[in-house]
């Protein structure tokens, strides 16, 4: 029997219920492995669909409607009911891991109250004023609570807690999804808890003077620590984890503990000693170390962070013009695709390659996408005419059921190479619709609080059974005239997008109907938006609950038949953008020096004949993004610096330099990729100065009883004269810094013993 038949034979036996081990018992190992592989594929965990009840209900309802539908109807559109709110695109499952500022909610409620703006009432649940600084050295105050934060009672149960709670030694806290909080200590130190994080306060005595002792245990999740400086040598700020401990003095660092108990310490300022299994790794600013359960900390590596466009996906990703290796441990969130904009974090491997441990989708690519609103004029099997524009539809176009000629709809889709507009969705425009993902904070008969937003529920609200506090939910609904957010559906879905219509309370920072909106360089914001305007905000909910806007669009009567799209310029006289002919007139604003081949965003109106009259054509910055990485200056030569990896950087260009460039300085270097992929060094910032240019700094404690260490001393420039030395702890670092190693020299190292530090 050939291998293919043999495999099928065994798979067939497996399918009849025979035990796996029996099936593979007489197979060669490699063939047995294939059978096991097939069996494990069939048992892939966590693949149950979450919305089956609603989906089945819709199917059955459609079947019933189908039976009663008039046969004269020109076409039965059995499309999926668009999730109740107009203009909602595909839901992207994404759990971002960015640690953005989480203070927004409380700030928002204060600001919105202070402004006298004609607006819908803010749906935010008002936060009561709470102290943000502890008044007792032996207690921390919980502040900036977002979402659901719980504290464990003596009987092991968890109870929701809120800003202002005093946290003392012995307390155990946890945050749920889309949630976070800050522990503010009396000495000014702070611990910021990210989502899905659990942390114990073991020891807490944090006076402003004298010895400060804070010991925390982080069981899982992410936290950021800002440690107040202390002159007392007995001061301690320690974060223990199941796989190791980080001890800091006057520094800032991040701790990440995965469910598999892989721990990472990232240091952004100062120094953190990370220890486990009698090994201490000294991690300085710009470095990180990883601890795998049961192993000592790994040597520190230099960190890389940034944002940029994805231009390649695979084992090697290209982001912001740079290649990154990935493996199964890389956390890839939101299913980024080529063209999308992502945030990434990683480190430089000793061999010079870059490794990404996190890639998070921030913005979908807008290239060759369009959106417009208008009146349905013709409904055809393959083509609709909307606002005079022909739009192709097919079986995967999401068409809201029941649409008729005359309805006002929003169309979204892609522009084909020949200029054809292919619709991905056609949905009725519902005034003041909303949709967002949040974490359930409270349940009520008349109102729920979801991520700080109070939504009204009534008999018309469809609520998926079984939802409890702490669940992540997708809420859709409509903002009523009185400002009430009426929920139409609440489901346990892992959508990560939001979309709502509201009134601008503030544009710096952005606050719309009381909701704080984060924007970045990729957020598309209509010009001229002012406080009091009605806007539509769409975007992505990040892991910590932050709402990152993809777009903020002004809503007014003039936007009827508005169209906008982003594509490459094919011709300028006449204007053809993405194969779409664009009419320009004397009122059209052409912004930027635009040439054929450039990417532009066209905003304008659809004329009755379906042509596009541009109001504005803007050249789109196509920079591919930037990365910031840390490294060490190995040497300085005239107007050049030589980095640890031997790379030579010419400083004569337009580079922003902060700090004193010197040998052994740890620097953050920011590099950006232009549209054509050219890499530019933008800035260099000195963040730390080492005693010497490293090799890796590892100390193995505890020291011998007499406080001395045995090392193999390799005289710089004369390695053949290596010899064993005994040195004290104070000079050990310097020796290791120039290449000496712990332990006696081997027989091949030459030289004899020497009890003196001769270096």
């Amino acid at each position: 029997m050939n291998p293919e038949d043999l495999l099928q034979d065994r798979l067939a036996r497996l399918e009849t219920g025979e035990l796996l081990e029996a099936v593979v018992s007489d197979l060669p190992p490699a063939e047995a492995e294939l059978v096991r592989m097939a069996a494990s594929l069939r048992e892939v965990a966590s693949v149950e669909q979450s919305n089956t009840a609603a989906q089945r209900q819709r199917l059955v309802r459609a079947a019933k409607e189908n039976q009663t539908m008039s046969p004269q109807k020109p076409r039965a559109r059995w499309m999926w009911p668009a999730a109740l709110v107009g203009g909602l695109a595909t839901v992207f499952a994404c759990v971002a891991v960015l640690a953005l500022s989480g203070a927004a909610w409380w700030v928002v409620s204060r600001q919105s109250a202070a402004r006298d703006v004609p607006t819908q009432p803010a749906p935010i649940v008002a936060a009561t004023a709470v102290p943000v600084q502890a008044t007792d050295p032996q207690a921390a105050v919980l502040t900036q609570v977002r979402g659901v934060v719980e504290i464990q009672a003596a009987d092991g149960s968890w109870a929701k807690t809120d800003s202002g709670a005093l946290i003392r030694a012995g307390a155990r806290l946890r945050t749920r999804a889309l949630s976070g909080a800050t522990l503010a200590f009396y000495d000014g130190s702070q611990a910021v808890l990210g989502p899905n994080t659990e942390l114990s306060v073991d020891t807490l005595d944090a006076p402003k003077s004298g010895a400060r002792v804070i010991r925390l245990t982080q069981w899982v999740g992410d936290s950021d620590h800002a440690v107040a400086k202390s002159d007392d040598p007995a001061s301690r700020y320690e974060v223990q984890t199941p796989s190791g401990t980080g001890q800091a003095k006057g520094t800032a660092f991040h701790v990440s503990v995965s469910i598999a108990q892989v721990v990472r310490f990232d240091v952004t300022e100062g120094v953190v000693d990370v220890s486990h299994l009698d090994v201490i790794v000294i991690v300085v600013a710009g470095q990180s170390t990883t601890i795998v359960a049961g192993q000592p900390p790994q040597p520190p590596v230099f960190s890389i962070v940034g944002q940029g466009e994805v231009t390649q996906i695979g084992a090697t990703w290209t982001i912001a013009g740079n290649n990154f290796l990935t493996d199964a441990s890389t956390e890839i969130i939101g299913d980024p695709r080529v063209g999308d904009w992502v945030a990434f974090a990683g480190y430089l491997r000793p061999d010079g390659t870059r490794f990404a441990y996190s890639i998070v989708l921030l913005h979908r690519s807008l290239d060759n996408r369009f959106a417009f609103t208008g009146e349905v004029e013709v409904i055809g099997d393959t083509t609709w005419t909307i606002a005079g524009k022909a739009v192709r539809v097919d079986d995967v176009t999401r068409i809201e059921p029941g649409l008729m000629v005359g309805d006002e709809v929003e169309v979204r889709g892609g522009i084909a190479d020949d200029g054809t507009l292919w619709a991905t969705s056609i949905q009725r425009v519902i005034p003041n619709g909303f949709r967002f993902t949040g974490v359930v904070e409270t349940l009520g008969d008349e109102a729920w609080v979801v991520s700080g937003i109070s939504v009204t529920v009534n008999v018309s609200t469809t609520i998926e059974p079984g939802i409890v506090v702490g669940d992540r939910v997708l809420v859709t609904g409509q903002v009523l005239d009185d400002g009430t957010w009426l929920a139409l559906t609440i489901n346990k879905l892992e959508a990560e997008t939001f979309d709502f219509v509201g009134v601008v309370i503030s544009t710096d920072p952005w606050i719309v109907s009381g909701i704080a909106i984060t924007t970045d360089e990729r957020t598309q914001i209509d010009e001229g938006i002012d406080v009091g305007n009605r806007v539509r905000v769409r975007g992505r909910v990040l892991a910590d609950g932050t709402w990152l806007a993809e777009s903020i669009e002004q809503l007014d009567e003039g936007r009827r038949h508005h169209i906008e799209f982003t594509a490459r310029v094919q011709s300028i006289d006449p204007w053809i953008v993405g194969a779409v002919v664009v009419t320009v007139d004397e009122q059209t604003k052409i912004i930027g020096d635009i040439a054929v081949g450039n990417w532009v965003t066209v905003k304008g109106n659809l004329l009755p004949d379906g042509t596009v009259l541009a109001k504005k054509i803007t050249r789109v910055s196509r920079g591919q993004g930037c990365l910031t990485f840390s490294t060490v200056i190995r040497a300085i030569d005239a107007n050049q610096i030589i980095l640890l990896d031997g790379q030579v950087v010419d400083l004569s260009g337009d580079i922003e330099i902060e700090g004193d460039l010197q040998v052994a300085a740890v620097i953050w270097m920011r590099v950006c990729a232009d549209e054509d992929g050219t890499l530019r060094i933008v800035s260099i910032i000195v963040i730390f100065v080492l005693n010497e240019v490293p090799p890796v700094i590892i100390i193995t404690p505890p020291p011998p009883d007499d406080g001395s260490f045995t090392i193999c001393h390799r005289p710089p420039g004369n390695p053949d004269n290596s010899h064993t030395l005994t040195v004290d702890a104070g000079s050990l670092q310097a020796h290791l810094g120039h290449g000496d190693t712990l332990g006696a020299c081997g027989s091949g190292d030459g030289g004899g013993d020497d009890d003196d530090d001769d270096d």
Partner: protein
Amino acid sequence: MTDLAELVTRAQTGEADAIGRLYDQHQTEIFRYLWARVGERSVAEDLTGEVFMRMLTGLPGYRPSAAPFRAWLYQIARNLLIDHYRKTSKRKMISLQQVETVGDGAPDMVTMLDQRLTMERVHRALTRLDDAQREVVTLRFLGGLSLQEVAQTLGKTENAVKALQHRGLATLRHVLNQV
């Protein structure tokens, strides 16, 4: 007439209960298949819904003599996937010109099984297979189709499916062991 055939017949007459039961019986496997292919749960959920809506519209014209019901249903799902990729995906598929034969190296199943297979991990590994292998592996082991049903769905011979099944699993094993 089998239970399934009877159910399909009733569904073809528009009986809502029968349509609901067809959904109950096949939703999970369709969803698993789609999730493995698109790698994004919410998209797979949406597409699953669309598969059954298309089933609803297509049922009156379905002919059991042309293809078994499951094969027909998977053909709908595959067509939806093709449209989905055509319209929305710019993902660059990296195709290993994979290990066509099972190597002699010691199988590292202990290591592999230590890392629980998740759908995300499977999806990423599947992107390293060529299209034909990916189709067969996904339909066969994520969708749960028999060899014969996969052959009917893809319009291939059973021997061709056997060969693709073997090569696909070998490549997948190689990829998963690599990562």
